[in-house]
């Protein structure tokens, strides 16, 4: 018995080691490429780390202040992504409660109809979407980025699935004790789905952060742009000219905040309250 557990440990370790190696090598290679000159990039032969570390790629990206006010972009993105993610979490938690805990006619049908509609690819919806934003007067404002995404079904589907996993006995007890839905939602369900809400926050923050197609359409003012759309102005040309160092540098600058958020969030989404605690006994 003891042997068996030890063996599983080694299998787990071996598997993780291989996975980490496969995932981390390209990552290191990407980071190190951002410190290579073009001359070194095109040199024949493979090296994981640069021979000469250069910071010109980063300087090139950061010094281009006339067309690329990067600090402003960063602030715009932080504002947009944070407000968007907070609103998504609130909306999704409340709505998912409605679709799992309340009973009204056609509840599940409604949910699945919405989900079905959302599965249609929206490539050509760009123009009608723009018209709506334009009608609302949101062109060139952060609202164009913050609000439309609240209509999304993905996160709602995720949280709904988690709530379905919470035993009904929990709220039934509370109902007998006289609690109403608002109270059950706030004091019983909400704490239990907190880990997944942190995941939703992370996903919607990074989703909003990385979106580039939509902001390119709704912003003309370079000072109001979020960073991913802004950096695209630079990346386009780096890509076309295969200026690989600069492209990597700009891509890495753009992910620093999302990486930091992830490192912060990951402490929390596994530090959850045990779903079944208090119920099993």
């Amino acid at each position, binding site marked *: 018995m003891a042997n068996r557990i030890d063996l599983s440990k080694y299998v787990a370790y071996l598997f993780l080691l291989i996975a980490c190696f496969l995932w981390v090598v390209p990552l290191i290679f990407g980071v190190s490429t951002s410190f290579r000159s073009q001359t070194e990039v095109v040199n024949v032969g493979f090296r994981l780390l640069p021979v000469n570390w250069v910071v010109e790629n980063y300087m090139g990206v950061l010094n281009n202040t006339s067309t690329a006010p990067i600090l402003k972009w960063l602030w715009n993105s932080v504002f947009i992504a944070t407000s968007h993610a907070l609103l998504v979490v609130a909306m999704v938690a409340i709505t998912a409660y409605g679709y799992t805990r309340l009973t009204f006619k056609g509840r599940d049908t409604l949910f699945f109809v919405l989900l079905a509609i959302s599965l249609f*690819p929206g490539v050509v919806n760009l123009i009608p979407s723009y018209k709506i934003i334009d009608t609302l007067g949101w062109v060139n404002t952060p609202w164009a980025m913050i609000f439309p995404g609240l209509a999304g079904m993905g996160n709602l589907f995720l949280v709904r699935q988690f709530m379905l996993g919470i035993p009904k006995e929990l709220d039934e007890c509370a109902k007998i004790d006289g609690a109403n839905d608002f109270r059950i939602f706030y004091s019983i369900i909400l704490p239990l789905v907190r880990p997944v809400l942190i*995941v939703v926050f992370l996903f919607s923050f990074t989703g909003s952060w990385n979106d580039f197609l939509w902001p390119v359409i709704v912003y003309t003012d370079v000072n109001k742009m979020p960073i991913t759309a802004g950096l695209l102005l630079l990346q386009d040309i780096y890509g076309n000219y295969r200026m690989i160092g600069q492209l990597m540098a700009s891509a890495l600058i753009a992910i620093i905040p999302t990486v930091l958020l992830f490192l912060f969030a*990951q402490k929390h989404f596994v530090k*959850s309250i045990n779903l079944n605690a208090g119920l099993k006994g």
Partner: protein
Amino acid sequence: MKLNGRLTPTFFIGPHLIFFLVFFLLPSITGIYASFTQWNLINDPVWVGGSNYRTILFDTNSTFHHQFINGLKNTLLFVALSVPLLIVIPLLIAVSLEHKKVKMKNLIQAIIYVPGLISISAAALIWGLIFNNQLGVANNLFGVDVAWAATQPYAWIIIIIITLWGGVGGNLIIYRASIHGVSRDLFEAAEMDGAGPIRKFFSVTIPSIRFPLIYTFVMTTAGCFNVFGQPLMMTSGGPNQSTTVLMMYIRDLAFSHGESIAGMASAMAVLLGLVILIISAFQYYLLNRNAS
């Protein structure tokens, strides 16, 4: 109390419903309407009835028919190749990470998750260099002399590799958050009964996270149907359009250099949507039934 009870659903689902109608349903209706028209995105759409659909589905001489069939075939191939891996690999990593004695869990998780944050163009450059015949590791270290992007099945292999590299992290996080919620008691009870790690995985872990599993299955599949960045960047759809996915054709029709053919593009998008819908519904039905 009674009145409150009647209005409760409105309060809980109402706000989202409004947003959905304005920002999702309204544009989608326009999109579906467009699929029955000839439209260049500028002038008013001209109603042509089901002609776009007839051309795409039945006119075997038409370029659009060929594009649709080829694009759908390649998309289905991509989905079939990548979805199982995008489910199984993160699941195995998540389970391994749950092992009590494994250390540096957060570091490992970060390493797997961070690539998904990097923009597709930068990721494509990294992998493009790694598989580059002259400069790359694949050829220089392992002596494989293959023009990856232009030879099958290698073209698909590099597309799948870059997809996994960026895509495993998201599902991993969902699985970790879910597995962590599973009661320790269940595992301990299973151990008492003499269950080994594999038995525990199948009889405790999987059933306990069945709802998140259904979610990842359906959404990963829908996501993979919408793929276009990876093949566009890695192979440009080649060789011989064997990696050109439907979404690439749709985008080209709507937003390429020439006059836009948005009506046809919309019709293809609607058909793709129907395929996604049927497959998702089937998956959901199958998994939900087995789960309960």
